[in-house]
C-alpha cells in the first residue's frame, strides 16, 4: 500500500533518505536547502538516528564521512556557497571511497548570488569541483516524487559504488509542494562488507572494494594520501597513484550503463530536448502541446556519469536542444557525443523556462 501525501520537495528528500536507511545527518542551515535539515532534525531522534548541526559545511561533510565509516548511511544537504566549502572533503570521500549522499538544492551563483532563486549552475562543480581526477554520481529530480525516489537511489548508488552520490536538485523542485506517493517498501542496497582474506582497498572485477567498517576488527588505515591496497600511504609511488586514480574513476565511469537512468519520449523525433531537473517540466509542456511535430525528450535522472549511449536512442535526431538554468554546462557534454547541432538554451535569473521560449528556440534552430 502506498500512502498519498502533499509534500515539499526538500521534505520528500529527507523522507527518501530515511526510507533508504539514512541514520546520520550532519548539516548547516542554508537557503534553499534548510528544510532538509529541519526535517532530519525532527525525524532522526525518533528513529534512532543522529542529527547534528555542525559549525559550517566543511565540518558537516567531515562528520558525515566519519559517520559513514562506522557503517551508518549518512547524508548532508546544502546549496552553492556551502557546496563550495565542501569541495576538499568531497575529494577526500572519493579518495577514501566513503559512501555518502550530498543533496544540493541549487541556487543562483556565483558567490552569494540568489539565495531564494533556482539554478543549475553547480552541475560541473559536482563533477569536477574538487582537485584531481575523479568520478562521482549525480542525480537530478524534476518533481517532489523524484526528490524522494532519487534520494533513495542516490543512497543505493553511493553504497554500491562507494563514492559520493549527489542529488542535484534546484530551488524550484526543492521548494515545490505537490502530490507524492510514499511507498511502504523501497529497494535498498547496502554496502558490501570487506571479504575475509582481502586487503582493505583491494577491489574485485567491478573495482569496488568491500567495506571494512570501523570497530569490526579490520584495523584499517584510511587516508586521503595516495595509498596502496593495504590503505598505507604510497604518495611517492607513481604506479600506485595511477592504479588508484584509474580505479576510482573506472569503477564509476565503466558502470555508466548500469548507473544510467533516463526517460525517453518520442524516440523517432528529429528535434530532441535533453533536460534534467525543473526545466524538464517546461519541456514536457512544449512536447505535449505540439504532438506530431517531431519533438522528443531525453530526460536525465542520472546526469553523471553521463549516459552518452542514451543519445543514440534517437536515431533520427537532427538537432539537440538543451535548456538549462546555467550557461550550457550539460549542453557542452552533449556536444562531445553527437555529430548534429546542439543548441544550448540557457536561463539565468532563477525563473523557469517558459514553454513559449522553448518553442521559439525550436523554430529558430529549424530555420537556421
Amino acid at each position, binding site marked *: 500500500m502506498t500512502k498519498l501525501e502533499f509534500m515539499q520537495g526538500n521534505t520528500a528528500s529527507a523522507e527518501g533518505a530515511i526510507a533508504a536507511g539514512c541514520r546520520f545527518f550532519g548539516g548547516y542551515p542554508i537557503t534553499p536547502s534548510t528544510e532538509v535539515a529541519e526535517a532530519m532534525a525532527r525525524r532522526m531522534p525518533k528513529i534512532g538516528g543522529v542529527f547534528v548541526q555542525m559549525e559550517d559545511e566543511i565540518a558537516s561533510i*567531515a562528520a558525515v564521512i566519519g559517520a559513514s565509516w562506522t557503517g551508518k548511511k549518512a547524508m548532508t544537504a546544502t546549496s552553492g556557497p556551502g557546496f563550495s566549502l565542501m569541495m576538499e572533503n568531497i575529494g577526500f570521500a572519493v579518495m577514501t571511497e566513503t559512501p555518502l549522499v550530498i543533496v544540493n538544492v541549487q541556487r543562483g551563483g556565483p558567490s552569494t548570488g540568489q539565495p531564494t532563486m533556482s539554478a543549475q549552475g553547480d552541475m560541473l562543480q559536482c563533477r569536477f569541483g574538487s582537485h584531481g581526477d575523479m568520478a562521482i554520481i549525480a542525480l537530478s529530480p524534476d518533481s517532489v516524487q523524484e526528490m524522494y525516489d532519487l534520494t533513495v537511489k542516490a543512497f543505493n548508488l553511493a553504497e554500491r559504488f562507494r563514492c559520493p552520490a549527489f542529488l542535484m536538485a534546484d530551488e524550484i523542485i526543492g521548494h515545490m509542494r505537490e502530490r507524492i506517493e510514499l511507498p511502504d517498501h523501497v529497494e535498498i542496497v547496502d554496502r558490501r562488507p570487506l571479504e575475509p582474506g582481502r586487503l582493505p582497498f583491494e577491489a574485485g572485477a567491478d573495482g569496488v572494494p568491500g567495506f571494512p567498517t570501523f570497530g569490526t576488527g579490520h*584495523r584499517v588505515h584510511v587516508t*586521503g594520501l595516495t595509498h596502496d591496497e593495504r590503505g598505507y600511504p604510497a604518495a611517492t609511488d607513481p604506479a600506485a597513484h595511477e592504479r588508484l586514480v584509474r580505479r576510482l574513476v573506472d569503477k564509476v565511469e565503466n558502470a555508466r550503463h548500469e548507473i544510467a537512468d533516463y526517460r525517453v519520449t518520442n524516440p523517432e523525433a528529429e528535434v530532441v530536448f535533453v533536460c534534467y531537473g525543473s526545466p524538464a517540466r517546461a519541456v514536457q509542456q512544449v512536447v505535449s502541446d505540439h504532438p506530431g511535430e517531431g519533438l522528443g525528450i531525453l530526460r536525465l535522472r542520472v546526469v553523471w556519469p553521463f549516459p552518452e549511449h542514451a543519445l543514440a536512442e534517437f536515431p533520427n535526431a537532427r538537432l539537440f536542444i538543451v535548456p538549462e538554468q546555467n550557461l550550457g554546462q550539460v549542453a557542452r557534454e552533449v556536444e562531445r557525443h553527437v555529430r548534429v547541432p546542439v543548441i544550448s538554451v540557457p536561463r539565468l535569473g532563477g525563473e523557469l523556462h517558459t514553454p513559449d521560449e522553448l518553442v521559439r528556440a525550436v523554430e529558430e534552430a529549424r530555420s537556421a
Partner: protein
Amino acid sequence: MSFDDWLRTDRLPHIWCSGCSNGTILNCTLAAVDAEGWDPDRTVFVSGIGCSSRAPGYIATDSLHTTHGRALAFATGVKLADPSLNVVVFTGDGDLAAIGGNHFIHACRRNIDLTVVCMNNLIYGMTGGQGSPTTPLGALSTTSPYGSSEPAFDLVALAVAAGANHVARWTAYHVREVQKAIQTGLRTPGLSFIEVRAGCPTNYGRKNRLREVTDMAEHFRTRSMVKAKFDRLVAEGRPIPPDTIVVGEFVRRALPAMGVAP
C-alpha cells in the same frame, strides 16, 4: 598486551626527524590506552594534516587520516554515529589552532567525548618551518624571518573557555605526566584536551637556539612551571619569566557532554 602490540610494525620506521618529540608523545598515548585496557578493535585514532597527524598511521587500530584542520569534525561524526567506539584525535598547532580553529572551539563547546592530544611544536614542521599561531612573539621561522610579529595562541585557555571537560598541558620532557594526563582524558566523559609541547630541533630549534635535542629537553625542563606555583606567584605579584611554560591540569569538570557511551 604490551604497547608494542598497538603499533603497525610493518609501517616502521616512521617519517619523523631525529629529535622530534612526536614519537615520545605517541608512546605516551599508546601506554595510556594500553594501561586503560582499551580494546584496539574498538578504538579509532583520527588526525588531520601535519607531522602530528601521521601518528594514527603507525597505530594498529582503525585510523582516519583526514584533511588539514578537520580532524575534530571527522571525529565528531565517528563518535556521534557510534558512541561505543573509543576515539582519540592527534593534532598539531597548525592543524588545530590555525586552519582548524573553528572546529576546535566547537568540539570543546559540544564537549564531544574525545581525547585530543595536540603535539604543539610551535611551527609548521611538515612544510619546512613556517610560523604557526603558537610561534612565540619574536621567534624565527621561514615566514617570520625577522621574528614573529604576531601574539601566540594559548590553546589551554581557549579549550577551558570553550567548555572542554578536561584540559592539561605538559611537555615532551614530562613523559609520565603526559601519560597520566592522557589516561585522565580517556576516563573523562566529554572532551579532554592535552597540549604537549613538542620539540622540533630540525625546523624550530635550528632557528631559535635550540638546535640540539638536549637543548630542547633542557628548555622544557627549566622553563616549565607547574600551575600551582604559577598561580601562587601571580597571587603574590611576583615576576614570572616571559617564556615560562605553565604545565599541569587546568580543569577537570563534568559539564554536559555529547557522544558519551551509554
